[in-house]
């Protein structure tokens, strides 16, 4: 590719122009801000222009001459993995074990080959998931301004300011402390705002133009150029005994991750966690591949890479039950992991409730009760169970107590509609025994800021309540300790005898007390009574809390990890009741019962809404969403052609909260944002089989596919 920008400045009002080679040479497999010398996927950004108006910028783009030399491309992951693949994609710093394999993970336990030879039945199937958009309401948008010290401030749609800070710093080869990122309320994200190449373009334009620059992607650009849910092909081979015990399972999964590594490589373990965390299987092998192709990069979407695995495993479970002529619920019970069981990763399971969740949802849809027969609409019921993992990395929080007793929480908290501000304010209010209105969440007022809040991975991995919330509780405890120390001096009572509630410090054993405000010294900053302020002599009443999850990695040679891959497992189970039109194949989902074990529901109403929202997204993926490709190009980048379910398509959803406390979480809580989207599609698919006797193995399930299968089996 060659770009001639000599005419780009011909029109007045152009302030900055950037091409890929204006950025430092890429040093990782991540999507670069703009294509670096070669374009690896359709709609990849190649040129950025900042101008006084949008129209001027568009004219400048048209005046720029871009010449492409067409090179061979590869769009099929199977072909890409062959040793003779015509295109081999690799990125700086990568040594690939096979062509276009960005990452391979292998898990091994027991002896799969021997177990297959002993099995009464060996059953194998292949399942597929589609490329999907996140379809969050708000497209990607950034505003950047150069700062006087050579740095840059970025406001925008990021899932976490610290993540954007370090990623942009890496793209621009700048000191991270010169990159300031502020994130306000997000209009939904679901993973779509996880990466920072677009933010880097905006920041670089602002630095070059020395003017504030706004970069707003259209819906179509957001959809075609910034990342999709990874399409996957999952092959499962199982050996089962006549009595219904799975004695061996072998999984081969291939994720099409598109042209760049982005977050795909590091997230491959998610599929392992999901495959390992549900069933008790003595002999197990999993080979997971994340493959490069010349398509738009895969990027996380709600329970990334685990969603795809659950689809395949839970479909396979019903196929096995059907072969063995066992009830799908009973068959799952025979193989389910329970607390204190060891899974195939050598982890001892705790705070899970797979069996209970399955039982609850089965009860909710009257499992086993047959529907009235109908000439046209055939009714069926289906189940699925799954798990979701927790976050990794550091999470910090700071809590400050004010003279009035009001508590400030300084933490990286991104509100994207889930209610995290409410949940975390509840935690701080509980810790101090004050009403929720006496808690100021600083990110609520100022946005989440890289320079004022503690480190966190932002909103990803459903981490905010579980991990940042835990750090907030630790910070509250630290601040309370400092208050108690000060009060102990004043009351001449040991700090261990003191407790804090509703702005006062009480002795646990006597009737002595002192209010927090009395621990502050009053003084005027100016000789005026109006200017009297309060301050603490010596130690401020500021507390800090840090939670660090250091997780293991898998050694492909041994097939085992060197530590836990997740701090906890979240159990989810769902049951679906569907009706299928025998003439048109059309599917009406009548009801979904959805159970999730959140450890502890800090705010049950918000948890129920996370369940409902997740199920809606899962249903839409099950029945409608699919990006169509032609030669690597997305051919349906508008709502006219990319189908999503809307309110009128949504059935009754019955959320069921289960609480098995997780000892590392705030009051036992785990992350609740993503898990419930994992089992929906498989539950619906299994219900369709119950209704009309056909197996659908590829997502999304359309009326046409159902009818075609029914015709084939008629």
């Amino acid at each position, binding site marked *: 590719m060659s770009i001639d920008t000599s005419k780009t400045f011909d029109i007045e009002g152009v302030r900055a122009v950037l091409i890929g080679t204006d950025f430092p040479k890429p040093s990782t497999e991540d999507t670069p801000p703009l294509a670096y010398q070669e374009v690896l996927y359709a709609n990849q950004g190649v040129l950025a222009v900042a101008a006084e108006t949008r129209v001027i910028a568009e004219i400048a783009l048209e005046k720029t001459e871009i010449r492409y030399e067409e090179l061979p491309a590869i769009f099929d992951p199977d072909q890409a993995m062959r040793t003779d693949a015509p295109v081999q994609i690799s990125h700086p710093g990568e040594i690939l074990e096979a062509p276009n394999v960005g990452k391979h993970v292998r898990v091994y336990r027991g002896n799969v080959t021997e177990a297959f030879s002993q099995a009464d039945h060996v059953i194998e199937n292949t399942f597929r998931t589609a490329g999907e958009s996140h379809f969050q309401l708000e497209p990607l948008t950034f505003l950047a301004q150069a700062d006087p010290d050579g740095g840059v401030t970025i406001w925008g749609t990021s899932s976490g300011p610290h993540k954007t800070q370090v990623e942009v710093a890496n793209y621009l080869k700048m000191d991270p402390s010169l990159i300031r990122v502020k994130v306000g309320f997000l209009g939904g994200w679901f993973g779509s705002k996880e990466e920072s190449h677009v933010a880097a373009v905006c920041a670089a334009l602002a630095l070059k133009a020395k003017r504030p620059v706004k970069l707003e992607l259209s819906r179509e650009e957001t959809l075609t150029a910034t990342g999709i849910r990874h399409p996957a092909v999952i092959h499962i081979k199982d050996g089962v005994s006549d009595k219904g015990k799975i004695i061996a399972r072998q999984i081969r999964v291939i994720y099409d991750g598109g042209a760049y590594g982005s977050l795909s490589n590091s997230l491959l373990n998610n599929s392992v966690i999901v495959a390992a965390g549900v069933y008790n299987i003595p002999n197990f092998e999993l080979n997971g591949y994340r493959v490069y192709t010349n398509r738009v990069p895969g990027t996380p979407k709600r329970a990334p890479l685990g969603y795809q695995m659950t689809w395949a495993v839970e479909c396979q479970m019903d196929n096995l039950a059907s072969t063995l002529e066992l009830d799908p619920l009973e068959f799952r019970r025979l193989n389910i992991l329970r607390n204190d069981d060891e899974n195939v990763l050598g982890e001892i399971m705790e705070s899970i409730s797979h069996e209970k969740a399955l039982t609850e949802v089965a009860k909710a849809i009257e499992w086993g009760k047959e529907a009235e027969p109908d000439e046209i609409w055939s009714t069926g019921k289906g189940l699925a169970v799954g798990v979701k993992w927790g976050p990794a990395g550091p999470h910090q929080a700071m809590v400050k107590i004010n003279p009035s007793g009001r508590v400030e929480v300084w933490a990286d908290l991104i509100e994207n509609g889930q209610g995290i501000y409410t949940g975390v304010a509840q935690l701080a209010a509980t810790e101090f025994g004050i009403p929720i209105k006496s808690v100021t969440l600083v990110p609520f007022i100022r946005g989440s800021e890289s320079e004022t809040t503690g480190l966190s991975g932002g909103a990803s991995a459903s981490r905010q309540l579980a991990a940042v919330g835990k750090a907030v509780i630790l910070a509250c405890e630290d601040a309370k300790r400092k208050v108690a120390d000060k009060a102990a001096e004043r009351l001449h009572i040991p700090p261990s005898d003191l407790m804090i509630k509703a702005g006062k410090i009480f002795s646990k054993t006597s009737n002595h007390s002192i209010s927090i405000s009395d621990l502050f010294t009053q003084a005027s900053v100016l000789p005026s009574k109006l200017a009297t302020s309060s301050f603490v002599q010596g130690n401020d009443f500021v507390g800090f809390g840090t939670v660090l999850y250091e997780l293991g990695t898998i050694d492909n040679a041994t097939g085992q990890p060197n530590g836990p891959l997740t701090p906890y497992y979240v159990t989810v189970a769902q049951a679906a009741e569907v009706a299928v039109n025998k003439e048109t194949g059309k599917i009406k989902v009548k009801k979904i019962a959805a159970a999730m074990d959140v450890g502890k529901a800090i705010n049950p109403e918000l948890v129920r809404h996370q369940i409902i929202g997740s199920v809606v997204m899962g249903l839409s993926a099950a029945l409608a969403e699919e990006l169509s490709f032609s030669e690597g190009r997305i051919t349906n980048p508008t709502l006219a052609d990319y189908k999503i379910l*809307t309110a009128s398509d949504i059935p009754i959803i019955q959320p069921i909260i289960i609480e098995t406390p997780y000892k590392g979480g705030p009051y036992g809580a785990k992350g609740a944002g993503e898990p419930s989207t994992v089992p929906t599609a498989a539950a619906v698919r299994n219900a369709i089989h119950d209704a009309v006797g056909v197996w659908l193995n590829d997502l999304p399930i359309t009326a046409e596919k159902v009818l075609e299968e029914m015709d084939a089996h008629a």
Partner: protein
Amino acid sequence: MVRYNPTVLERPSSINEAAQLLKKWGSKARIVAGNTTIYELANQGGLDDVDTVIDLSKLNLNYITRYDGSLHIGAMTRFVELASSNLTGNDSYFAAKEAAMKLTPPQIRNMATIGGSACSGIPFYDMPVTLLAIDAEFHATSSDEGERTIKAEDFFIDYFVTTLRAEELLTEIVCPNKERSSSSFVKLGRTTIDFALVNAAVNITLEPKRNRMSEVRIALGAVAATPIRAKSAEDFLIGQEPSRENIIKAASLGLDFEPSPSLHASSKYKKRVIPILVRDALFAAVNRVLRT
């Protein structure tokens, strides 16, 4: 990138003025009615040559009236008005009301007009197929040739093309009232808010004194470049009693051609479900006419 960037907005206050403006601007101008289809066309790059927009909202073409039994619908009448009008309940053209009621989402139903829907020439829209089935007439006017009336049969020519010339303006759609006649509209979409994968509208008329069908019109949408009639099924039913058996037989006769595939439905699937849509539409129409 959207290149649709018109620089002139005309808002004529009479049909004459509108016709003269159309003559003046020719193919450089586009009429806007409900502003729904034009938005998508612009997005797709289909209006790059348009520099003038003619807005008809001041022409008072927003009305539904009935005389001599026929229903007269102004071209600027919105779907929501058609859906809620108590004048559209007559069985002979009830399908138009049904199509209007089934148009989703409500935001589009509130904006889109019957004239715009017809003039867009989009074969999977719900109103064109319905107007063909209920034997509607289209009233058009131009400054050179004055008014003319076009039968639904002759109105739709190709994808995005109708018989209207660039300088011609659709003013009114007339739905005839036939004695002992009834109509119905049905649609199959992937989701509730969706264009039709296939849609069908029918109109049947019984003989004055006995329950035999004297006229049958069956129209299908989303199967070809225009809405199209299922002639074999119609011919089979004429002179027959509207019995369950006859309807099922007629519906199974289907089409004499391969329906065009779309992103969301193959030709094979369309062929498979067309008989079901036709059957259901005929059942509904027959039930309605026999009930009265």
